[in-house]
């Protein structure tokens, strides 16, 4: 198992139930309305629907005090695994909250208590067609302007940008080209990164996707993987090393999200945005690009007395997520006025799409997205910019349903406008 629940017994046991996992860092609370940070707790209210509740469930499962119940499955799979609770807890404590939540899912899958039928349908498509939509591999994006046969950079397009929001892939390619970077595509050889499997606790199935993608990367000889999808980014950067029991820095490749690549190109002077884009926008930090994207640091050791561990462990606390590059990009586009929402960066409110929630609990995913849109509206903007296709999709659908004055766009498309 990749996240054995037993390994995190101490973390579950040590939760002091302070409830900080439910609130934005108090230093950053700006209003009564937008002070909450845990979508499931905000929506469903029961303490069970929170990190605190799931830690208690995990402990009870481990101790044989609790069996799988409909309530347990509902809580576990309604959590978007956004990691906000983990960042909040780790402001003060050294508890691996998110790993307990992931461990719960893996255990559910192992015991065949999960995932849910809607997840299984996605898994079937990923296994059969190597993408979450069940579309033919040959229909993945095979060509993009500027793409070459071989290059040091591999643009890993991702399922969504290959089959659904293709315009973002074209925009990303144009940004790469404009920055003078040579890049290649995998085309039909690209397989789903495995995120839908990981999110639902099926790590061993995801391993097969990883192995294929890593082998293909090696055969291309590329050293850098660029993504336009925050979920693919986090999977390549964090979860592949986890499955291989290695640290991110020990991998043979590096991963960049297009915002990092563009920001580096801006700094190097190889990219500039000349075309004014008159828009007042706000930026939504995708969880997988923000607080969840810190490099993985592999650790094996023992728990000692009190909170000590041997050897010392470096905790991922959400401090070093990709927060500044998208903001630097937006601030470098003439005409753009960036207005921040109340909950930003590591304190960002999840869009609701992650963790398989959009597949299994559409209404809750849209409720979560609408909360974010209301926050955006209150900041006085009409456009929400983000950097993840699933944030775009979920926020976009929520906007179409209830907030038709709000547009949701991927940052690559905004960069394209500034280039044109």
């Amino acid at each position, binding site marked *: 198992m990749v996240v054995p629940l037993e390994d995190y017994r101490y973390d579950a046991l040590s939760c002091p139930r302070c409830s900080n996992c439910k609130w934005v860092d108090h230093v*950053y609370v700006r209003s009564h309305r937008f002070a909450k940070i845990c979508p499931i707790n905000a929506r469903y209210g*029961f*303490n069970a629907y929170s990190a605190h509740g799931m830690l208690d469930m995990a402990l009870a499962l481990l101790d044989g005090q609790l069996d799988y119940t409909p309530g347990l499955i509902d809580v576990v799979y309604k959590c978007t695994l956004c990691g906000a609770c983990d960042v*909040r807890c780790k402001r003060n404590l050294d508890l691996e909250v998110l790993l307990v939540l992931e461990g719960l899912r893996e255990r559910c899958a192992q015991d065949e208590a999960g995932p849910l039928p809607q997840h299984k349908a996605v898994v079937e498509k990923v296994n059969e067609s190597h993408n979450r939509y069940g579309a033919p591999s040959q229909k993945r994006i095979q060509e993009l302007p500027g793409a070459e046969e071989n290059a040091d950079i591999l643009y890993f397009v991702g399922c969504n940008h290959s089959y659904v929001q293709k315009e973002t892939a074209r925009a990303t390619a144009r940004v790469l080209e404009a920055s003078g970077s040579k890049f290649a595509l995998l085309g039909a050889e690209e397989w789903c990164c495995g995120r839908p499997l990981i999110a639902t606790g099926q790590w061993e199935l995801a391993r097969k996707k990883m192995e294929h993608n890593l082998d293909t990367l090696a055969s291309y000889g590329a050293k850098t993987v660029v993504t336009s999808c925050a979920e693919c980014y986090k999977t390549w950067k964090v979860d592949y090393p986890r499955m291989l029991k290695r640290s991110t820095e020990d991998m043979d490749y590096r991963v960049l999200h297009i915002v990092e690549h563009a920001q580096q190109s801006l700094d190097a002077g190889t990219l500039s945005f000349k075309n004014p884009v008159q828009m007042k926008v706000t930026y939504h930090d995708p969880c997988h690009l923000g607080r969840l994207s810190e490099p993985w640091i592999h650790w094996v050791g023992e728990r000692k007395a*009190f909170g000590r561990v041997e050897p010392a462990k470096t905790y991922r606390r959400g401090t070093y997520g990709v927060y500044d590059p998208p903001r630097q990009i937006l601030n470098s586009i003439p005409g753009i006025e960036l207005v921040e929402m109340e909950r930003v960066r590591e304190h960002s409110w999840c869009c609701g799409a992650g963790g398989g929630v959009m597949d299994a609990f559409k209404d809750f995913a849209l409720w979560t997205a609408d909360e974010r849109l209301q926050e955006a509206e209150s900041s006085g903007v009409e456009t929400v910019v983000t950097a993840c296709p699933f944030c775009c999709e979920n926020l976009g659908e929520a906007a179409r349903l209830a907030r038709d004055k709000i547009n949701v766009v991927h940052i690559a498309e905004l960069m394209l406008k500034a280039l044109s």
Partner: protein
Amino acid sequence: MSLHKEAYQALESILGNENISEDPAICEADLKGGSGEFIFDANAVRPACVVLPKSTEEVRDVVKIANRYRLPYIPVSTYYIGLCAPSLPDTIIIDLKRMDRLEIDEKNMYAICESGVCFSQLQAEAFKLGLQTMTPGCGSQASVVANTAVHGMGPFGYRLGSAYRRILGTEWVLPDGEVLGLGSLSFSPEDYFWGEGPGPDLRGILRGMTGPMGGLGVITRMAVKLFPFVPEPPKPSGTSPYTRLNLPTNRMKWFHLTYATPEQAVSAMYEMARSEIGTMAMTVPPLFRYIARARGKGANAFWEAWAKAKDKIDPRETIVRILLVGYTSDKQLAYEEAVLHDIATETGATIAEARPSDESWIMSADAISVYFFGGVYMPADVSLDSLNQGLKVGQSTAALKKSRTPPLGEDYGYPGWLQLQELGHSSYLEFLAFAGLEDVEQLAALSQDCVQRDIDIGAYPVYQDPTVFGPKWQDYHHIIAEVKKTFDPNGVSNPPRPMKLMLE
């Protein structure tokens, strides 16, 4: 346990099926109360169901059903307090989180809070209006209503007064389901401006010695006083875990005064209060300093530094940390700063201005940080008394603790955390002790040592069993028992709270 079907259906008819659950996994989260693997949880029983009312009327109806079927119930909101773990079968947890309406009367400087509103929410809204509220020691995640109904202690209590002084109109669902308005609410259902009377002030009964702990029904709405603040509040900055408020240095400054002895420090704190300067003033236990320095570095870093501290820490040396605020003007801050320097000179302190930021007390409160390096923490003793008495209790507790250290965690003999309260008319001492998970019973034993010691020296008992202290304090436990029996004739409101007596 599961509820009788008829009772469950009655609750469901009030709340709707989305807002009630008897699923064991859902109930598991409310099994242990709110203090981690703590001694209060030892005899906890998983609740029979959890309900989420949205209004006072729903709370009232739930409470009436509980009385009808003789089912114990416990109101909870934001946790991190003991004494809300169910100890009887068939308990209903009334989670008040959905009741989160907040309304501020700017002109009259008060806020009406429902039970689900936490302190940082209120503080953020108050700041926008140039006002402020308390930040309690347990942290800003705490419910304003629940915390204020208990002692609600924290360093701001020096300037803003004790919690019970801040309570205005209050809506209270009595243990049997009757809804009662206190203060101005008793004659004007929409008006929260006044807290007292008419007639005997029932806020005292509500609060009792240490707060009702859910043992006297449910407070659904409470108006709390707000206070003037600086026009430009501190600005948040930094990335987690290094987040802080940057102070407007023309209006706010922290100072550290270092003394050779705690007696000198206490004398200086009296002088600060006599001069009416500062908005918070407290001693800083060495442990707190080492925790703060280790933030973000992991427990190993803390323990490494703490082990080396043995040769550096003089338990007599005492640092007093004081926040000066120019509420009215820059000149007020300049004046208070000048007075503080005079006090430092007269009392033999080394004075230094601290960095112009606040990581904790204005908006956050990091009490939870004491769990950072593992193990279990608890206030082995708490004193609400004069500064001199607080110091006496702290020093005595340090001596008691020494005999149990190890296995209790080492704190190098420091006599606890002492805060000025009520402009120096009282103080608050918390003597925190910690142990490994396997030595929790040692914490309980130290607490018992302190109980006996408090009886011996006539210290004011807080958070302790009234049946032990009662005979020494005019048999007040009989009064508490009588109040409980009168208000809660069926004994269903978080039995045995507000004290153990009701179980016996």
